[in-house]
């Protein structure tokens, strides 16, 4: 594996990586990512992005969906930035 992996682009269909589990935690009122002996608590935006990753939807479709749902525009840079971080952390696969 290489530290400089290809970035996730608009045409990718990312999914949550194997050995990670995404779930809503009522006690924490947030989405969390669970993995061996650990947990990442996601902020609201990260939770909204992560819960839409299903390995079928493209990043572009995901952004369209978010912009429609939250009645906003210009989310592309934020989504790509987050996916880059998530990819680097090993949470998602392109």
């Amino acid at each position: 594996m290489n530290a400089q992996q290809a970035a996730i682009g608009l045409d990718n269909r990312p999914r949550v990586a194997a050995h990670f589990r995404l779930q809503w935690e009522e006690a924490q009122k947030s989405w969390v990512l669970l993995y061996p002996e650990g947990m990442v608590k996601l902020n609201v935006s990260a939770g909204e992005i992560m819960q839409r990753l299903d390995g079928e939807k493209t990043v572009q479709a995901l952004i369209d969906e978010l912009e429609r749902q939250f009645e906003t525009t210009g989310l592309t840079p934020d989504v790509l930035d987050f996916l880059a971080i998530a990819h680097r952390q090993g949470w998602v696969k392109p």
Partner: protein
Amino acid sequence: MNAPPATANVAPAVQPGPPLWLLAELTYRCPLHCVFCYNPVDFALNSTELSTDDWLRVLREARVAGSVQCGFSGGEPMLRDDLEVLVAEARRLGFYTNLLTSGVGLTEARATALKQAGLDHIQLSFQDSTRELNDFLSHTKTFDLKRRTAEIIKAHGWPMVLNCVVHRLNIDYIGQIIELAVELDAEYLELANSQYYSWAELNRDALLPSREQLERAERVTNAYREKLGDTLRMFFVVPDYYENRPKKCMNGWGNIFLTITPDGTALPCHTAKMIKGLDFPNVRNMSIQDIWYASPGFNHFRGDAWMKDTCRTCPEKAKDLGGCRCQAFMLTGDAANADPVCDKSPFHHEVLKAVALAQIPDAQRTVVKPLVFRDPKASRQFTEASTPALK
């Protein structure tokens, strides 16, 4: 929830978050005899294990209270034949389920059942590599067992996480340990220096590595990190005796971590029962909700009102919360003292003494205590021997 309101109990000094981490120590029974075991030295006195129904209730109550990571540990948790039932319920409740095992008893049949139950992760520990050091180094019996177990773990799609407790007697072979992890195709390797509690504390003089050993081991580990990149993630935990500031033990007393021992005692960490004079609740007669938020044992060291001047006036107190209560108790006799790992502690010389001894090669030592292996007989002997001293 049907937990009664906690009227009779004390209010917490600081309202904590949920007990995110639940460690279920299912049994103290164990086929191994590790000299660094953190189970209490008097474990043999603890004979009445919780029933399956008790554990199922603990899991449900803890989940309602917000626990989300669940570790099944021991002793050797594979010795409980209801393990699959407990894992299935934990998984159904939404826990991320971790099994911490030596691999002894992890047959293909049980692995299949555990997979069906929804087990998320297995952490495979190396066995006692002191008693079996030669075998371990020669890659014979131990290697065969690990290879078989690793194959089973891989075949079922679990991530391969290896844990090896590192100490004076095996630290010089850290390169071989890493090679073994590579051969087993592990994704994670925890090289955890022994922490000196319980059996490890009894054996501390024999187990604490020298500074030179430690530095060499870190160099070797870093060299492998560079060579292996992301294929094997390695965590190297240093022994805190070599630090000048204490660790933020358990990330704070009663902050995220909840241990239930085999007999149902609830603890803020797996060794806290050693602290004399503190009463810890039992899940047989108190709900997890009340244990966590309202029991005196859990509230005792929350916040900083309990601190003595060394810590209370320290600008760094929020960083480490005064370190480890058990270590303070063991080395100073009072759990409210600063952890003597801290060089501001009036008892820091206790740690320096142990570190100084660790620099003396075994062959040049005047007093050499024999290693004490963790087993029920030794447990009874040491418990009897230490009882009068505690009064």
